[in-house]
């Protein structure tokens, strides 16, 4: 291993050290790690945080961001926010789902509005804009991404989304130019983000009396979005425990039979 050793040191050094690119003002800051109830092999979603986070999504984020992959029946499903079926039905009924054309081929009602019907459990959350062009037109040319998978779709996952949501409070460094119509956020690539600061203290009034600071709101909505991106996490963790217990037992028994069969053979 005499030749291999320096090589090993170099390789390890590279793997541990990572690359250092020249730091400039527009390179995003590394995300801040926060505590999440769903971390670790036994992690579960904090029901209170899920329900509060849903409220933040509904009252704040959903004005611009769709949640296409989530259905209303997910809200009362196992491992989710834990609403009752009646609550989920009531929530669904509060949304207008496009219903045209009707049996006469009409797509507008007598007032010229698009035909709609109240949502049912099988419906998915309706998007805030009819199409990408409308979404961009309302948001200064930028497209608010769908939030169904946002936690899985960003490096850093929940920590990134959380850092981004609370990162608006930081002031740009001296000499940094915030582009016209953009906002400064040090965790966003390029640090110029089209989304205005979405959360302020008291953005929502929590039903359970929790004080709605920006940090609390961000934590809750990130928990909700983590669930939206990975709704089977609790079922997976539970099954993982059972599978692991079985496999460890199986390995133990297989080891014993292996030793017994090989006794005296090597």
């Amino acid at each position: 291993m005499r030749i291999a050793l320096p090589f090993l040191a170099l390789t390890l050094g590279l793997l541990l050290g990572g690359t250092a690119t020249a730091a400039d003002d527009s390179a995003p800051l590394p995300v801040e790690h926060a505590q999440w109830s769903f971390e670790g092999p036994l992690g579960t979603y904090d029901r209170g945080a899920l329900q509060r986070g849903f409220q933040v999504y509904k009252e704040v984020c959903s004005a611009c961001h769709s949640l296409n992959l989530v259905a209303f029946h997910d809200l009362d499903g196992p491992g989710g926010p834990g609403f009752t079926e009646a609550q989920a039905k009531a929530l669904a009924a509060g949304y207008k789902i496009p219903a045209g054309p009707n049996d006469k081929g009409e797509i507008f009602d007598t007032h010229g509005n698009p035909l709609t019907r109240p949502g049912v459990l099988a419906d998915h959350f309706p998007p805030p804009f009819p199409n990408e062009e409308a979404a961009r037109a309302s948001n200064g040319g930028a497209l608010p991404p769908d939030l169904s998978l946002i936690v899985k779709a960003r490096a850093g996952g929940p920590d990134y989304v959380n850092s981004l949501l609370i990162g608006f409070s930081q002031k740009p460094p001296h000499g940094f130019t915030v582009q016209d119509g953009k906002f400064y956020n040090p965790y966003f690539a390029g640090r110029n983000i089209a989304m205005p600061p979405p959360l302020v203290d008291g953005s929502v009034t929590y039903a359970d009396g929790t004080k709605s600071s920006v940090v609390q709101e961000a934590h809750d909505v990130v928990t909700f979005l983590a669930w939206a991106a990975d709704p089977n996490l609790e079922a997976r963790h539970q099954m993982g425990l059972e599978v692991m217990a079985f496999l460890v037992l199986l390995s133990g028994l297989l080891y014993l039979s292996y030793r017994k069969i090989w006794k005296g053979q090597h």
Partner: protein
Amino acid sequence: MAGNSTYVPATGFTRWLDKRLPILRLTHDTVSTFPTPRNLNIWYTFGGILTFCLGVQIVTGVVLAMHYVASADLAFNSVEGGIMREVNYGWLIRILHANGASMFFLAVYIHMFRGVYYGSYKEPREMIWILGVLIYLLMMATAFFGYVLPWGQMSFWGATVITSLFSALDQVIPHLGTAITTWLWGDFAVGDATLNRFFSLHYLLPFAIAAVVGLHIWALHIPGNNNPLGIDVKGPQDTVPFHPYYTAKDAFYLALFMILFAAFVFYAPDFFGNPDNSIQANPLVTPTDIVPEWYLLPYYAMLRSVPQKLIGVLVLLGSLVTLFLIPWLDSSKVRSCRFRPLMKQCFWVFALDCVLLGYVGSQSADAVLNLGGMQLPLVWLARAGTAYYFAYFWVLMPLVGRIERTKALPESIAKSVLGTAGERI
């Protein structure tokens, strides 16, 4: 080994069957009584593990195909909305399949490095090695097609980058490369037609792999297993019957492997994934860094280490074709690196070189490493790594066998195992 079957049918039915379809005789001779060197270590259990991996991929894949929609408009939602959310246990089947691919490659790399270390490719086992390399290439193709199917950003752009490699042929004959690329895509860009043919091929190739695995095992049964000492079996005292000895050993290590597999599936299902693949494919938005799955990263680093596209593609191709030739590149008569002190060091440097190339492949193309104030562009590491990769096969393998003084080989497997404790790795 053919020709000396010890199978005796015990019942009237098995006697009847044996005259018509001697399938029980085949099983008996190739599995039960097959004489196997008694000194195979943990690294020899990966053949069985790989068979398990192929089985998992085929079974989960067949179920996924029942729910998957191969359409540029619907594919992403059929996976992320349908399979992951609506299909009963669809999430489990999908993460088994996605992580199963990584486990498959992890096992195949261990299996291949083991073969290189103990000289299992050498005479008379050249065909086993060649068929193995063929399986490996089929695996890479299958994995590449499979990675495109969820139709995320990395699926789309990975498909675009890899298929565009053929356009390098434009530098040889103008328009030839572009014509081939268009033919591969079935369109003027990666789209619906591409996705559908990739789905078809992704379903086809695993069965081709299974067939070549059959040949691989057949070829193995002619000379029998190599072993960590790399010396020939000299008689029955050197072997044990495959069953129950190696069935028991393989089963135990397979169970350990399944624990590792399950740890990823249940506790870190996205560990090997790329966040960009949770974003639906968008031909108008290029991801900042287009990276392949981890098991293809070393080749990606080699490809990118050459600024000239055509030569880069040739280097990539050469790195794979070289693998077929190593039975004839290695000049040593001694198989196992246990008795080849110089080759052993070259081997470990080679193993680290592959890890290094993998690391470079995972970084962006213009990344610069800051080594205590010294700026080292990673592309130079990729070049050094690529040079060693080729030098290992084309220079060291022919050369070291001629100049190194090998250690004395043990008299027999039995003596080494049952007598004084043989030297370990």
